[in-house]
């Protein structure tokens, strides 16, 4: 499968934002990610699909080194963002995560006000010089996350008081307030109802103009709706990656075919 990915990548023309080569992940004795090589493009949405436990979330968490927080987890291979190896000894994961933001499966607003939730990132990264700038960042981010109109009158109330969909959009606003270059989303709609899901999907589509977005999803339809490129994972291996249209209309692997037609999942 390794030779495959090189060929596939060669076929893409746009510049890669992130390149991963021969990535292996171990959880203690378990080999969770096996030799995955993948390119992720700038200003595009890449979807990771595959049956549960296939390693797509694990791989996503490697991209901003969230796996560092798990003590038994070990990562090998190379992941570069704009040519810089993120597993280089000199890299501070904190700086990396400012560049590669993340939105999680379950909305996890901080026990703070809506305003403070969004202002958190800019504050710790020292992005603003004064309160006016911070207000500006908060407002812009909430607007980008399509939440501004709903919360502008109650910025001081706790973020935990919002509905599930609003909370997830708050988390997206929080992530984009730090001005990341890449946005990782780990099944961002799995805890949301269909209406909220639609809102978030629409939002993802719009975010594409500014960020490189990687989304892990269980839903085939979602991948088809929001992504330009789709990567299929199975049992810790990358089956194939291609333009979304190609994957869904003319996959080159039988496993992908079976998965997208619902034979297993």
């Amino acid at each position, binding site marked *: 499968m390794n030779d495959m990915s090189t060929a596939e990548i060669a076929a893409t023309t746009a510049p890669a934002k992130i390149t991963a080569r021969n990535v292996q992940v171990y959880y203690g004795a378990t080999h969770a990610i096996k030799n995955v090589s993948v390119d992720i493009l700038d200003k595009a949405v890449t979807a990771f699909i595959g049956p549960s436990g296939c390693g797509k979330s694990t791989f996503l968490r490697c991209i901003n080194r969230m796996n560092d927080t798990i003590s038994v987890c070990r990562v090998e291979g190379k992941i570069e963002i704009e040519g810089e190896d993120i597993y280089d000894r000199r890299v501070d994961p904190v700086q990396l995560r400012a560049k590669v933001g*993340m939105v999680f499966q379950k909305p996890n607003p*901080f026990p703070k006000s809506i305003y403070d939730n969004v202002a958190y990132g800019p504050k710790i990264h020292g992005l603003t010089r004064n309160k006016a700038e911070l207000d500006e960042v908060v407002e812009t981010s909430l607007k980008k996350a399509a939440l501004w109109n709903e919360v502008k009158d109650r910025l001081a109330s706790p973020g935990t008081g919002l509905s599930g969909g609003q909370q997830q959009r708050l988390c997206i606003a929080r992530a984009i307030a730090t001005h990341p270059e890449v946005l990782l989303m780990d099944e961002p709609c799995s805890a949301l109802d269909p209406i909220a899901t639609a809102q978030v999907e629409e939002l993802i589509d719009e975010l594409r103009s500014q960020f490189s977005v990687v989304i892990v999803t269980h839903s085939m339809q979602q991948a088809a709706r929001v992504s330009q490129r789709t990567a299929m994972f199975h049992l810790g291996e990358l089956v194939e990656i291609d333009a979304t249209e190609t994957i869904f209309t003319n996959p080159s692997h039988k496993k992908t075919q079976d998965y997208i037609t619902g034979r297993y999942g």
Partner: protein
Amino acid sequence: MPLVLIFAFLAVLAVAGYVLGRRRALASADGNIRALHSLPGYYGWHAVVMAVIPAVLALAVWLIVQPLVIERQLSGFFPPEIVADDAQRTLVMADVRRVAAGLDVAVAQGALTADQADRIRTEFGSVRDRLAEVGVALGAEVTPQVLAAAQDYRALAAAGGIGRTILTIVIALAGFAYALMVTNKDFRARNRVESVVLALLVLASTIAILTTVGIVLSMLSESLRFFTMYPASEFFFGLTWSPNFRGNSELGLAPLLWGTLYISLVSMIVAVPIGLFAAIYLAEYASPQTRAYVKPLIEVIAGIPTVVFGLFALVTVGPFLRDWFAQPTGLGNSGSSVMTAGIVIGILNIPFISSLADDIINAVPQSMRDGSLGLGATKSETIRQVVLPAALPGIVGAVLLAASRAIGETMIVTMGAGAAAKLDLNPFEAMTTITVKIVSQLTGDTEFNSPETLVAFALGMTLFVITLGLNVFALWIVRKYREQYE
């Protein structure tokens, strides 16, 4: 009959009841167990329950009532003004009991015959000396009334003893007979036994309430007695504490309350940062192996008796602070001080705060940490700005509970804080606390009729109210914050 023998009798009756009840039930069913309503053992237990429990209850009631009745009977020996005055009556009755006990000892040792004990008169020589010979020390010479009352007391107690024995045995036998009478194959022995057992279970669980009632009533009644002798306003608002057993005491709460709060404050300044940081390190930074060793080690501190900390304060911390801080800076010359007691109580409270805070921090969902780390926050930023605010209610609760422990701590302050009641700001001065004064006013042979002794109950009540208030407040805060985040 002494109590031991009564209980022995009940035990024998119980065994007999079990055997006979069981046999009778089986006999009524012609040996066919299946014809019985309950298992044969239940019929046995039913007999046991019926023979023992009513008898024991009756015995308990008798034991409580008898002294009250005797005391009323004996009041005839004394002038009404003594009987009317609570304090004097208690004093006289205590004398009577002591002389009576002395006569008992004398009879037991053969220094007096039973007859002599009943007829001995003060006119024939010193009763005190006679009793001293057999090792019963009396404070003052025995007055004729007291002696007569004591002799009457012995007679009444002896009569009471006989009545008690008869009553218990009769009730036990009656219960025994009743149980055997009703025993037949259709009797629902299991249901009866089970409802008795259930009643016992309920009784056991009400002991907690009885304890609280006992605490409140005993302290309240004695405090009220105190306030009849000493004005409440002077107790609560007085600025001087100088008890004097010859009278003219000033018993102001303020210096004690100040000492208590000051020492608790120092202890919290020690315990909160250390306990909290230890908890943070253990919960967020330490590897599982480190945690497995360090956490139990810190909890060892909590398992050490407070008197050990008291000795540590007295022998090590006090002299150290005096020689290295108080004397060089000219702030004091005493090993006992607010600092000594405060620091040592602080050490005692470290494991309390750290293990509570550890639990609370661990309860903060991991997703919250991930959210912050995913935004590029460092670990400490995550802890300070996300984890701690989320854990705040629990931590505030833990801190308040620790404060209540510090306020109620006794041994460390008794050994390390000193005995001087003053309103002072210098932490290297010896000061004293509510608990120290409770101990000092109540230890030793004191009669409970002077304000200097009874003040301890008012102090106890104050302490109880403060700590209870803190606990309730702590729980309320926790609940309020929880609701906010739910």
